[in-house]
């Protein structure tokens, strides 16, 4: 019996989505194979990792990752510049945490100013994220889309409860859009359909099927991503072909394993490494499942995932 390489060719292809402007603009997606199977297809764009920053000091981040940014995190502009200039970030994800009614309830105008300031300070692409409050995001992201007009940003997240206004704003100001649903391939598909029915181009969409941290439901996110990818590639389901986002940092940097000091759980070993490895392994697992864009926090975790991608490409 002689060996024949068992190739599978896909009918479908992941849509290629570009964001940012000028020579720092990026593209994600475009592959016609399951992740990293170069013997049977093309994966023209490597997964992109964006550094997460927020519009207020990261008081709720665990010390091991908060400490890394302690000199810059008081101000989103210096934080963004630090990521770009010192850490070599390829993209920034700005989360408008302080617009949340419970986290400062800053206005849409405040958010707009922050966005303009950050955009003026950096030349790498920007992802603009709301505070994940359905009602408030609807107002804030509309203002954000206008403030960032002309910068080809990714804005999000549009969810079932607020997508209409956010889609209209992204459409008007020519941004890319994250559509988020909660760990269910059918909900993800349905939201993509609703959004494209509003006249929004499916080639400007990014699907966020909701992330989970290692040990906290990672298997659900992993399998939903794999199923979305298989539907888009194997069944050529056009509604399942946008690139996939893994919003890793915020789901990792709250679990017990990245917070509990070694003195409390000696059997878990050093806390610093534990946090970095937790974010690294979560992110690496998700790029294997099909994630094209990751949002992460710890620079050492980002470095290790970038090195893993170097090896996978």
């Amino acid at each position, binding site marked *: 019996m002689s*060996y024949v390489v068992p190739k599978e060719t896909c009918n479908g292809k992941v849509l290629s989505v570009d964001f940012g402007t000028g020579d720092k603009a990026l593209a994600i997606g475009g592959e016609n194979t399951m992740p990293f199977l170069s013997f049977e297809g093309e994966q023209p764009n490597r997964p992109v990792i964006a550094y997460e920053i927020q519009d207020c000091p990261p008081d709720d981040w665990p010390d091991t990752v908060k400490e890394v940014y302690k000199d810059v995190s008081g101000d989103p502009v210096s934080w963004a510049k630090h990521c770009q200039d010192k850490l070599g970030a390829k993209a920034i994800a700005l989360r408008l945490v302080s617009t949340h009614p419970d986290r400062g309830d800053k206005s849409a105008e405040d958010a707009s100013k922050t966005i303009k300031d950050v955009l003026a300070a950096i030349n790498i692409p920007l992802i603009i994220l709301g505070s994940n409050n359905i009602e408030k995001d609807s107002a804030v992201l509309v203002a954000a889309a206008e403030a960032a007009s002309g910068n080809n940003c990714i804005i999000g997240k549009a969810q079932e409860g607020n997508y209409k206004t956010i889609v209209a704003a992204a459409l008007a100001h020519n941004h890319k859009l994250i559509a988020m649903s909660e760990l269910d391939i059918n909900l993800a598909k349905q939201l993509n359909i609703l959004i494209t029915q509003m006249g929004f181009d499916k080639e400007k969409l990014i699907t966020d099927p909701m992330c989970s941290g290692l040990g906290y439901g990672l298997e659900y996110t*992993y*399998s939903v991503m794999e199923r979305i990818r298989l539907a888009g590639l194997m069944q050529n389901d056009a509604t399942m072909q946008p690139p996939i986002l893994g919003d890793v940092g915020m789901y990792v940097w709250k679990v017990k394993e990245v917070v509990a000091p070694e003195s409390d759980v000696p059997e878990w070993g050093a806390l610093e490494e534990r946090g970095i490895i937790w974010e690294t392994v979560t992110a690496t697992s998700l790029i294997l499942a099909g994630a094209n864009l990751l949002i992460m926090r710890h620079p050492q975790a980002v470095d290790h995932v970038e090195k893993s991608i170097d090896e996978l490409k």
Partner: protein
Amino acid sequence: MALTGVQIFKLLPKTNCKKCGFPTCLAFAMKLAQGGVELSACPDVSDEAVKTLGEASAPPIRSFALGVGDKAVKMGGENVMFRHDKKFINPCALAVNIADTLSDDDIAAKATEVAHSEMDRVGQHLRIDAISVEYASGDVSKYEGAVKIAAEKAPDAAIILNCSDAAAAEAAVKAIADRKPLICGANDATAEAMAAIAKANSVPLVASADGLEALSALTEKIKGLGVENIVLDSGAKTAKDIIEHNTQIRRSALKKSFKPLGYPIINFVIRDDSILEASIASVAIAKYSSIVVLSSIEKWKNLALFTQRQNIYTDPQVPMQVEQKIYEITDPTADSPLMITTNFSLTYFIVSGEIENSKVPSRLAVMDCEGLSVLTAWAAGKFTAAKIANFITESGVGDQISKKELILPGQVAILSGALEDKLEGWKITVGPREANAIPTYLKSR
């Protein structure tokens, strides 16, 4: 490739004797093709039919154990490419490599680290399963000594003889024959000698080749020499080779019924940088490896890899459950609030995470609802007023708190009246519908 009923029928005696319990040989053959009956039910079946059918019905990926005793790790036997199709069956073994050039004390220390690596997570006992002892000294007696120390200091671990020299492998196998070490391994030049050692000692053997074409030829050769328990080493070192080779191996075995690659896989992921090594190990764990060999086993690294392996090998059709009990979050006092939810692990993780985020010390009563989420459990009649009342009463939590108040998930507000009737002396409060509203809710109480 499974045979059809008609193909099986041709191999049967065609006497319609009914001794198998079926009216005709054809009916028996049809049932056999569906896997609903064993071939042994036919008393008159020929040896040739047994052989042909046995081969055809053998699992596409051979299954056998690494190591001996109750800590042995079952490998192979997988049936699917993607975990959402069906559970990945046998979680891969994690091994640490120890070179025999280390001092005896260092070897003993590393092996002891393996012996003490066990930790519990979500009800499972997880550990570093194996030690790969590397023949780097070029001194057979040194190697034999190193293998003995490793085996003695880690009495439950499987031993992998990372050694391509037949004389050294033979000495090491004989030194710890009762541990049934895995010889790693045979290449094209050493196949005869290594296969003879593996066969004589009834131990499994790794086939090591560069690429899958050479590997297929090598496993056929080794099988022809009488060794059946073979582990595949395709020579993959980079993450790219690991994912591509392992995918092709699993696909060849499952979809092409290609027997020469129908065996478990071993991957070496050794890197200088321990976190990068873990990241590459997570590629091997997710993508079909049966043995992943590491260079170091720090506790934080073990915890992350054990957890990832557990996540990947979870049964997608059985909801993960957590233990039914009253969980204390950030040292509650008698005045702290008491909330209740169901034991679906995701529900528990999200609710307990939000309570932790609130920084309000609390108690969370987690009720066994067979792993269903709150609304599903309520709809299925598993999260009812009577059952909740029973659980709360039996838990004795009422004695630990000053004011008997229970906070219900907002999704099941409808239960509050009935629950107040059934839980005498308790105040029932309706909490938020969604977990992300819990911090605000608790802080504002």
